[in-house]
């Protein structure tokens, strides 16, 4: 269970995340939406340790992980993907996935074997020995997802993992997310594709100008006047 209390992050005079509370249960899929600059990526950067927060607390299963280092938080079971994908370009698909495992297991051979299993789960197995630099952006994003999933973390944060995907590819990613949730992995998704995020999320959190302006079921959020005004617009049809 991930618990955020009064999390605030400032960049000089700009309050990028303002007093945000959040509770995520095991296996829950939480959609994080909001206009550009709302603080979505900053918030997940705070959770994953890339940004140190100015006030508030972040707890994972009652353990305080506030302002701990990125690798510590990652090893506690919070893994993430990046808005601009960051696969290891020189490394092959298997090596990329094995990188997701080395902090837990030092045996390279075992990690490579496990990586093969994960590659198969993510439909990457016919490209096992291809360098990441030779993959399409969408495949690289899936590879990043596989790398994050490899250790079977408690929480996976997906930052616009579906951007640029075709409808077919979006459906594939949604299937993967559902499978993760069924394995008790909590998923936080930042996404601008409303059709996808509204259909898969059990809970939606809306940020605007760093503040949480709404939280609830997708059906409640799509009818919330504040959310409509700040982000969705009048014409949204889910």
């Amino acid at each position, binding site marked *: 269970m991930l618990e955020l209390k009064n999390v605030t992050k400032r960049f000089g005079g700009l309050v990028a995340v303002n007093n945000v509370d959040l509770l995520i249960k095991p296996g829950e899929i939480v959609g994080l939406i909001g206009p550009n600059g709302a603080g979505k990526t900053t918030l997940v950067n705070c959770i994953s340790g890339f940004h140190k927060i100015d006030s508030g607390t972040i707890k994972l299963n009652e353990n305080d992980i506030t302002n701990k280092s990125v690798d510590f938080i990652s090893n506690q079971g919070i893994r993430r993907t990046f808005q601009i994908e960051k696969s290891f370009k020189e490394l092959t698909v298997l090596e990329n996935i094995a*990188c997701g495992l080395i902090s837990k297991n030092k045996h390279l051979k075992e990690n490579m074997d496990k990586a093969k299993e994960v590659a198969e789960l993510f439909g990457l197995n016919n490209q096992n020995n291809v360098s990441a630099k030779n993959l399409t952006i969408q495949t690289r994003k899936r590879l990043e997802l596989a790398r994050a999933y490899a250790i079977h973390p408690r929480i996976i944060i997906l930052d616009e993992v579906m951007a640029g995907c075709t409808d077919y590819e979006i459906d594939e990613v949604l299937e993967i997310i559902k499978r993760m949730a069924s394995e008790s992995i909590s998923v936080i998704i930042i996404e601008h594709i409303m059709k996808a995020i509204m259909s898969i999320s059990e809970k939606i959190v809306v940020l605007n100008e760093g503040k949480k302006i709404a939280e609830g079921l997708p059906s409640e959020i799509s009818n919330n006047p504040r959310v409509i005004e700040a982000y969705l617009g009048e014409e949204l049809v889910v």
Partner: protein
Amino acid sequence: MIRENILKDRTFLIFLILGLMVPFFIKGYALKVAIMIILWGIAAYGWDVISGHGGQLSLGQAAFFAIGAYSVNIAYLSFGIPSLIGIIIGIVFSAIIALAIGLVVLRLRGPYFTLCTLAVGEILRTLLIYFKGFTGGAVGLSFPYQEHSFISMQYTYDYPYYYLGFVMLIIAIITSTVIKNSSFGLKLAAIRNDCDAAESVGINLMMTKSKAFIIAAMITSMSGSFYAIFMNYIDPGTVCGFGLSVQILLIALVGGRRTKWGPLLGAAILIPITELTNAYFGHIRSGLPMLVYSIILIFVVLYASEGIVNIFSKRFAKPIKEEI
């Protein structure tokens, strides 16, 4: 990255046998050049650990080269410690200094790290000049001449130096290959590709980079000690100059980073070129050897930017099936 076991590698075993036989076939000046190739090859393998495998461009390897060189000389001249033990003292001392410096400079990324390593080399050079009681200052230190002394590793013929260097070279090659084929090597590869992503998969950047920096320092120190033993004379300008750091870097770049044979091949190409350009162009005009050397380097960078060893490996490698 192809996983391999160096002890089962036929090329390596052939190299080992041929390498041991070299002093039976070449003598005099040619053997001296072979020793210089080994010496600079070792230093380049050291640089390759942090800058090739780890992707952290260091311009301060001369500092560790100097620590190795001065440790041997000071241990023998001031305390009468045999040179072989002096080499080990140099290695340990380099590891400690690398740990201390690494705690500061490895927090930095990219050009900031590079500039700091450059400064480390220059600071040490200044210190070596300043503490003249120990280091001989700008004049440097020289071994008093003794005939065939195992204690100070002085011989009137060259093959003992060759074998001492060859053992060090084998240690450097094995270290580099083991790193490349280990989990540690994969961590370094991840850091080299993307620090943020590496951290996000739980890799401790400081710990991993520090280990690489220390191993690099230890290998470079070994080459510095070997230099001091072979040359019998060291001074701050020669063993701790910026030029030396660049030379080490160039050898690894020209040969091929992160490859088993690259640094040695780089030394085997650049050292003879230096010798030949000095021999043939040195008397015509000062600076001409450097000009010829530079032109050759430009061609290498243009036509073999990934290192000369990769031209061979691409030509002879089995095609790897890449299904896209």
